[in-house]
């Protein structure tokens, strides 16, 4: 396999920065650090994505963040090296809650409870501890939190982007139609 990859300088600077940063890095922060605009960063990152085709590494895009990770075909080689790895078991309640958060998030706990018809606080706490979901204060209600999936969750499933979730666009659309008729979400 012969691949031509003319990688521009900015793409490489991004690669070096993400390599050292390790964690997902916000595009905005990357732009500030490298003295470029967010658009330039995004473009160069696409470029880097292409260049990584022949590498063991890949870019994980999650929301406004970027992270460097190993490709899925190397899982078995590297997982033994990882300390305190996330347990691979997903209980049914956990998988169901993750499905709701993946396709409907960011959303609040009452909204998750409404869809599942059951109190999700224990399951959410468990997923937070495992780092599979993130929570942030609800900008509309500072006494409440919004939940969304994390980059770690995508990596856990072996995915690079949220859009790679099974049936992502298809399901999101159908879901919105189904919920259109339903406006009464009871807030506690």
């Amino acid at each position, binding site marked *: 396999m012969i691949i031509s990859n003319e990688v521009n300088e900015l793409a490489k600077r991004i690669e070096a920065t993400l390599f050292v940063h390790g964690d997902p890095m916000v595009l905005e922060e990357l732009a500030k650090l490298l003295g470029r605009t967010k658009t330039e960063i995004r473009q160069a990152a696409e470029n880097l994505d292409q260049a990584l085709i022949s590498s063991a590494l890949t870019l*994980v895009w999650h929301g406004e963040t970027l992270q460097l990770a190993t490709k*899925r075909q190397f899982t*078995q080689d590297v997982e033994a090296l990882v300390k305190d790895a996330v347990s691979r078991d997903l209980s049914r309640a956990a998988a*169901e809650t993750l499905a709701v958060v993946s396709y409907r998030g960011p959303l609040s706990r009452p909204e998750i409870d409404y869809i*599942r018809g059951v109190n999700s606080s*224990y399951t959410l706490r468990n997923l937070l501890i495992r780092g599979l979901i993130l929570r942030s204060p609800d900008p509309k209600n500072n006494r409440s939190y919004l939940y969304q999936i994390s980059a770690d969750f995508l990596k856990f499933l072996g995915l690079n982007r949220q859009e790679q979730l099974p049936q992502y666009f298809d399901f999101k659309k159908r879901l919105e139609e189904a919920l259109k008729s339903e406006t009464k979400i009871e807030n506690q």
Partner: protein
Amino acid sequence: MVYKVKTGKFEGPFGALLDMVEEKKLAINEISLAEVCQDYLNYLKSQINMPRAETASFLTVGATLMLIKSRSLIPSFELTEEEEESIEELEMKLKLLKEFRVLAKNFEYLAKAKQSLFSRQALLGYNFGFLPPDKINIEFLREIQKRLIDSFPVPDLLPQKTLAKIITIEQKARDIISRIQSRIFGTLDKIISAKNKSELIVGFLAILELIKQGFLDVEQKNLFGEVEIKKN
């Protein structure tokens, strides 16, 4: 060692109901819901350790199933607009949950496929000796620790009240039998004589149970009349 948060073993009324519909390989509609009504009530009765907060939501779904079942038994049974809506909502929510379950199955499958991506630890290999942050002192640490300890989740005590006034299905059934025996016949409203929604639900459950067991006979004299219940 991994610490795992205790998760409730109850999957909620919709989850349980969906299990029953799917077990019989039925589509989600009024006919199938009427069919699994009895299973649902039996399940409800068997769950003696169900958390109180859960019981309330289980009973609400039970009430909607009772409406569906009643209409299938008594075709002229009139439903209010609100009741019609609660049936529609139940169907909608079951369909929605079913969709999410398919997606959840995909996640479980992906998780088992062992294809996780791994990243590097942040700033690996860098060591700065000692770089103390500003504004940190003993009192600050104590305060932060205290706040964290104070925020530990406490067990849900709140729902204790919710069920205080709800009578069990068995109690209500006994009560109705004795009232039927003394009055021979009466209308549904009077027999149930519910003080609140929860009692009405339990009363409904009891009546249905008795009809099914052949203790009671249901009669509706005219199309919009009251439903009469007689002892067989």
